[in-house]
């Protein structure tokens, strides 16, 4: 599934998990900021009739090997998921949006911790668990997965 998960505030990386220690992921995430910023600016232009609750920004970069998807929270926290080109062909936009929403929820839970200092690295076991579930999940599961069942996902990963 996802081979890289990243969370950014402005252009600062506050969370990163890669399936392999490849430098390429870092460059790609960094390069995605351009597109994310641009897309967010376009969406929030005055006069836009879009629901500003959250932004699933879809495919960002059509790089050969990977597909990079972006999502922005109402407070402009950026979430990036990278999939390998070969595994992601069966993924639908709605599935990816669900993945992002789970990630977003996990992020909210994590920053709600009073001991978390804003804008610093995310260090949370629960968040790690959710990310792990995103990275190992099988295609078939994603379509049936909903926001209300994150515990199921955690169980599958821990067993």
């Amino acid at each position, binding site marked *: 599934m996802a081979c890289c998960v990243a969370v950014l505030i402005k*252009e*600062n*990386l506050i969370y*990163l998990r890669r399936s392999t220690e490849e*430098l390429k992921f*870092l*460059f*790609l995430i*960094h*390069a*995605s*900021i*351009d*597109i994310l910023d*641009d897309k967010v600016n376009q969406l929030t232009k005055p006069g836009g009739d879009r629901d500003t609750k959250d932004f699933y920004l879809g*495919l*960002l*970069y*059509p*790089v*050969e090997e990977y597909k990079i998807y972006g999502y922005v929270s109402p407070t402009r926290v950026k979430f990036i998921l990278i999939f390998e080109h070969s595994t992601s062909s069966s993924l639908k936009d709605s599935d990816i949006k669900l993945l992002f929403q789970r990630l977003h929820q996990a992020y909210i839970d994590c920053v709600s911790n009073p001991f978390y*200092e*804003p*804008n610093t690295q995310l260090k949370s076991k629960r968040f790690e668990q959710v990310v792990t579930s995103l990275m190992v999940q099988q295609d078939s599961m994603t379509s049936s997965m909903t926001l209300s069942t994150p515990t199921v996902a955690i169980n599958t990963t821990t067993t």
Partner: protein
Amino acid sequence: MAWACIMPEELSIVPRGLVCLANLDTRHQAVHRSIWELLDKERANVPLRYRLVDIDEQYPTSKAKRATYEWYVPKGILKTSWMHKHLHLVPSLVVIFFELDWNDPLFKEKQTELKNNIDLVRTNLDGRGAAISVVLLQNKNSFPTVDDVYSSERDQMANTLCTYFDIPKRSLCVLPVLPQPDNLSAWIDRLEQTFIESSQNYYMNEIRRVKKHKETLNNITHQLLHIRHQFKVGFFSELKQDIPSAVKSYKNAYSYLIDNARIHDTNILEMKIIAGFLNYKICRISFELSQPVEAINHFRRHADIFKSKTGPVDLAFEHKAWLSKQFQTFADLFTRCPLAIQTQHPGFYYQESAYQSMARKQIAQTTCRRIEPTDFDPNEFLKPTEFYGQRPWRQHHQSMEISDAQKEREAIAALRDAESRVNHSELIISLLVQAITHFKKHSSNRMKLYLMYNLAEEYASSKDYDKALNYYNHIVQAYRTEQWWPILEAILPSALKCAYLSANLQDWIRFSLEILNPNIQLSSQIKNQTQTNLENLIIKNLAPQVEPTVSANDDKWKALLNKQPIVIDADTFKGLLECKVYFTHDAVSVDCDITLQVALKNGFPLPIEFDQLLVYFNLKEYDDLANVIDVEKLKFSPNEQRILTFNFTPRGDHVQRTLEITSVSLIYGKINQTHIDFQWRTSLQPNPSFQQGPLTPKWQIKAGHILWENLPIRRKTNVIMRAAEVQLTVEHQLPVLLYESYPIKIHIKNCENVDIQSAVLTCICSNTDENSSTSDDTFLFYATADSNSETTTNICSMTFKTINKDTEIEQDLYIRCNNNRSREIIIRLSYERLNLHCMKEILIPLTVVNPFSIQFQTMGMMMEPLASLRAQEPFILMIDTKCISTIPITIVSTNLKPSQFIISECAIESQINNTQLKQDEVVTEGFCLRTQPIATPIVQNLLVGEYSLYWKRSSHPDIPKLCTTFSLSDFNVEQQQVYVEVSIPNNVPLQEPFQINYRIHNRSNIVHEYKINLEQINLIVAVCGSTMTSLLVPPHSSSDVNYTLVATLCGFVQLPKFKISMIRPPTQEIDESIDRTLPTHIFVVPSLKNS
């Protein structure tokens, strides 16, 4: 490696039908030349390509077409010569130009000559289906006029000629252009139309011919022919300008190749190359038809399908080369399309092309090596082939097995040899540069950085270190600004190596410092080595040590080590070395010391010893006062922070100047040798805007140790005057009343231990309201006698000659405010003491209010309110004065000055002299007045007069009174027709007769007759004599009616009711309101008994 990258020029030429022009002598004949030039010139959308040929031109011979493909095994898909042949050699039409007039005397001879020419061309065409056209160039005078266009005679001759030449009639054209052409381009346009028709006809036949083969083909042995034929149909369709059919045929060929063709190691190159050709054609046409999405989708599919078809492992580089070329050609095509967007533009394809080339380079470097020329001749394996994509050493080979394994091995070695000679870096760099251009154009600067990193690596690998350094510098700076440390960790070691190899001292030091930044999580071994190298270089003048894998560059480095200051902008090296400056006080009195603290924090991984610390100020006089040259004070262990404190006195002439730190400079290394100069400038500023701090405060970790984040920054301090040792107080009672001379008592007490000489007291009004630019609404003065003098302004000052020690003096200040704005008064006492300027200042805010309000109203003589005055009739003017401020006021006197329209009935005297009013108290006075006659029936806005109030603040009886004047205006006056004036005693004794007199005024221009009746209501007041009478009154005069009455009861009793009505003129009525002006009651007192 030419085979895989081949993209023949013929493929990229836009196909246009070929027309050969024979017998045109462009060199000697002007007319021929202009015909050729018109046809040959660059025009948009011309479907034909023209070529000049000799009449005996040899055209490529046509092979015998086989009737059936049974038993036929094709040797390959597409011959390398085929496209060129049909673009440039095989004509669709041959046009023979010939000068022949219908009435030429040598008609027969020329006709025969022409016939010979035609036959020659026909022979040379040798079975090719090209049409032959004849164009007769004729004298324009012999050309038929409009009347005989269809001259049957000429028609006949033309028919005969066509039959003789054996060409269809359509192919014979006449061009009347000799000796000098008129309007040649119009003729040429018409001529070209017939060419197009013939040419397209030819290609249609060709397409038909190729298509006819299809039924005879099978899917097993004739796979290649299926593809070849579809390609040919597509190409002919393009020549025919039938673009939709062309795309369809190319797509058919492509899908046949993908779905049906057997692809194996021996023919994979041929298949890929043909697929690449077809893809190129399809994409190019899609872009030209403005269907970029179509093109992109097709290319994506193409790339996805073939990416995995690597082919023989030994020739993997060939596959990468082919892929790279595919991406590059697609990007080239895309570049021509204007519809690119940020997420879909040619840059991505150049990028991928570059990556494929990098992969190719890597494979080539690991697997390919040169071969000894003695082994065998590699050129044998690299010569051109008959078919695209085939191997020179086994052309036409269609079997899946390799027959000669030895030959195959030699061939692969030869190909690898050729590959090893390719300059991959050059290729990769040009692709990356193109990609960068596109990413820049589509505002993707961060992606650009990624590509620049690739570019820098590539330059470094091709040993072009200076260029690589250029890029490294840029990207390191960019990633540092965005604080992407993980990327920097990866980049910096190679950047440092690059700087070493190019012997660039400045960059080497810079990258070393970057590596030493605590944010960079490299291994401590690397970091320690880096710092040691740096120390060796700066302190001991030794060239840096490098890993054994890097070729040493010591000689160049030795040359570098002379005196050279390296200036480092320390603001950007956050974390490695930090500096904070802090003036302990915001403002320093000129007789005190300035205290400056400079805090330094060291992030070097090993202990470090700096040489000098220099602090620079905006005032150069202080530059040397805060320097450290004591090395002991500048020794830092890792993560140590230290605060250095400096004290110095400000200079007397810098009072009211700001002292500001411009830069701090920390020097590493001896100043007269190569040293590093860390300079802080911008980071010395306190954080400009709101900084998002953590919600939880960060506590001191251990006693005496202050967290770096909590250290304050203040880089400016103001030098101010010595504070004056005096007490300055004021006594006054707010609010200020508008226009009054507001008294303030200033108390000055000398607290110095000596007498104060020549102290200056200055009072200034500063407007709190910024918008108001008028400063003349406030007047300040020390004595009330000055209040009306011209010299008073909003500033006043005076000098006290001596203020004795420990004494207190008083001074009055008066302020007059001319409007209601609030304002501030600055009271400042200044004097010289010990040659220093001393000053004390207080600020008094003032609010200004109105002291009182005035209301006035008019009443008739019976005290009834009047809406409007009546001309020539008396009225009463009542004036109410109300105190509205909290300050009691005294009304000294008042004065009413009637205007010219008003007569006063009696002497006007003020009735409220010396009245004191507190808040909300009202004082009223009334005046009886009469209006003058008026010219018109109604006069509006009559000015009654001016009312002046003389008043003062009750608490200060000695300040002069103030006069406030109101204008009494806005009265309406009406002229009444009739006015009854009544004379009646104020009171009458009981049972004694008294007189009552009614004088009736006629104010109109005509005679009036009235009926008058004094109606008896009760017997309390009895009327003597007749009560009813009539009365004649001339215009503008009056008549009297007298009654004698007797009262029979004491008290305030009702009078008989006086009634008046009009007899003449009968049309007029008397206004009923007249009743209200008449007295209705009289006061009856008991009679004096004893009189």
